[in-house]
């Protein structure tokens, strides 16, 4: 483990993991309260299209995720897609078409460039593959996201719990909803850098849902979710680093695998605590 703290990619991975965990934790809590988990999932999947397109254009995939994430989120809000929830043929078909198109772009990526592994980088991500140059942009977007949530905290919480009450208090519910969903789009792109587009839901929704099982107070939940996210990303980085000597490949197990497994474990742990508390209380 002596080389762990001296390694450049590890530094970047630790910082990127922290940014993603904190911002996802904060925004994730509101996503879960508002029942928009599925929108987050759809935005992640659609990010595949943006990432593969950006890769083809020779741009860092992250910018593809952000552009598509924000644009699609705004469109989704305008058409009221988020109200239809997950069980919808239309959403699935649109996602299918987008993923089909992404398949084509990825195919071009692999045939036109000499760098292999675009598919892995975009779909499954890797904290170790984050380029140090992307880091300032990620931190900047993360800070903007946190400031937005802080400014919008009251109206956002009020409109999440009761839209009617918020409207009666003079909150512009539609505007708050639009800004928030665009924010989710941006956060999902940050999370896609860490664990890839099709796994990005895990970091957005997992720690937040776990935190909301443990506490009902939103501010506490935000803190707990961020901490759980940190445990998952940093734990993933450490385990992945340690796994370099593990069988069967001795090349290290993918960091994204550890991160999502830790997220699931933390969620199940929180469920267990919530269940035990309910029993003790009954």
């Amino acid at each position, binding site marked *: 483990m002596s080389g762990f703290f001296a390694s450049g990619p590890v530094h970047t991975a630790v910082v990127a993991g922290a940014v993603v965990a904190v911002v996802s934790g904060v925004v994730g809590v509101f996503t*879960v309260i508002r029942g928009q*988990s599925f929108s987050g*999932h759809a935005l992640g999947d659609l990010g595949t299209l943006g990432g593969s397109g950006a890769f083809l254009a020779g741009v860092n995939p992250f910018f593809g995720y952000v552009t598509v994430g924000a644009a699609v989120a705004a469109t989704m809000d305008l058409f009221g897609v988020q109200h239809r929830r*997950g*069980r*919808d*043929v*239309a959403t*699935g*078909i*649109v*996602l*299918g*078409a*987008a*993923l*089909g*198109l992404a*398949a*084509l772009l*990825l*195919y071009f990526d*692999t045939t036109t460039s000499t760098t*292999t*592994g*675009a*598919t*892995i980088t975009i*779909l*499954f991500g890797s904290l170790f593959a984050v380029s140090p140059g992307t880091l300032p942009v990620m931190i900047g977007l993360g800070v903007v996201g946190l400031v937005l949530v802080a400014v919008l905290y009251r109206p956002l919480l009020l409109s999440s719990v009761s839209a009617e009450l918020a409207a009666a208090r003079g909150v512009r519910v539609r505007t708050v909803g639009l800004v928030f969903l665009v924010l989710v789009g941006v956060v999902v792109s940050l999370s896609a850098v860490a664990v890839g587009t*099709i*796994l990005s*839901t*895990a970091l957005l*929704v*997992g720690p937040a*849902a776990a935190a909301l099982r443990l506490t009902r107070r939103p501010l506490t939940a935000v803190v707990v979710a961020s901490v759980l996210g940190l445990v998952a990303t940093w734990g993933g980085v450490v385990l992945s680093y340690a796994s370099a000597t593990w069988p*069967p*490949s001795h*090349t290290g*197990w*993918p960091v*994204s*695998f550890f*991160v*999502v*497994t830790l*997220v*699931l474990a933390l*969620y199940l742990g929180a*469920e267990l605590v919530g269940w035990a508390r309910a029993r003790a209380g009954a």
Partner: protein
Amino acid sequence: MGAGTGRGVMFSGVMATAWVTATLVAVVAGVVGFHVVVRGATFAAHAVPMSAFAGAAGAAVLGVSAIAGLGVVSPLAALGVAWLGRRRRTDVASALVIVVMLGLGALFLSWTAEYSSQVYALLFGELLGVSTQELAATAGLAVLAVAAAAVLHRPLLLTAVLPDVADGRGVSVLAADLWFLLLVAVVTTMAVPVVGTLLMFSLMVGPPAAARAVARSPRATIAASVAIALVTVWSAIALSYVTDWPVGFFVGILGAAWYLAGRAAAALAARRRPGARRQPAALAA
């Protein structure tokens, strides 16, 4: 991806296997997809193939046929979906389980020599995804699935459309749900090597959704669904062969096109007969 077999042999050699496999896949996907749409079971159509990715990846590590891995994991995933559905916890818990199954698949494939191309093939499908040796297994599964769907046709339909009546007649809704999910598992096992995990949904849902717009009776809808699925995979294979582009691209785009066409046809029919709302296909039995 790249077939590399040259232009003159689109229907011979390994390509013959591709055509036969695709035909079998389309027939079964068309039939089972009808029940997916009637039951509104889009979550199962999404979750089972996604989870099965880990099975196909595990098979690649062990050096056995992807169909063997899918055949083991798909039924387990189907049972998991049934269990989660009964507990009404389909939201966060199931999303996380699916994500971990995908992550597990990525882990397995990272142990294989051709990591990137394997991941790509299993997620987006492959023209020559089923080898000639695996053709017998695929055909066996197809016969099994179509026979099961024929035998289960009435109970599946009844439990989907009129669960109360089914209950009164002693038809178990739970049993029907389980049989249905096992059918989804069979389609997944057959189809994932060809169309890929991420695009199974398009093939299973696009054609029947369009078929419902043009056909009345359940039987006619199933026939139309199979016909549209056949056109989808045949065109996908031919286009993929000619352009060398991925099969999944064509399946995803055609699935969406069929769905849109179906919606447009339904809207047009509704406008022509104002007031006369079209009955759901399943009720017109």
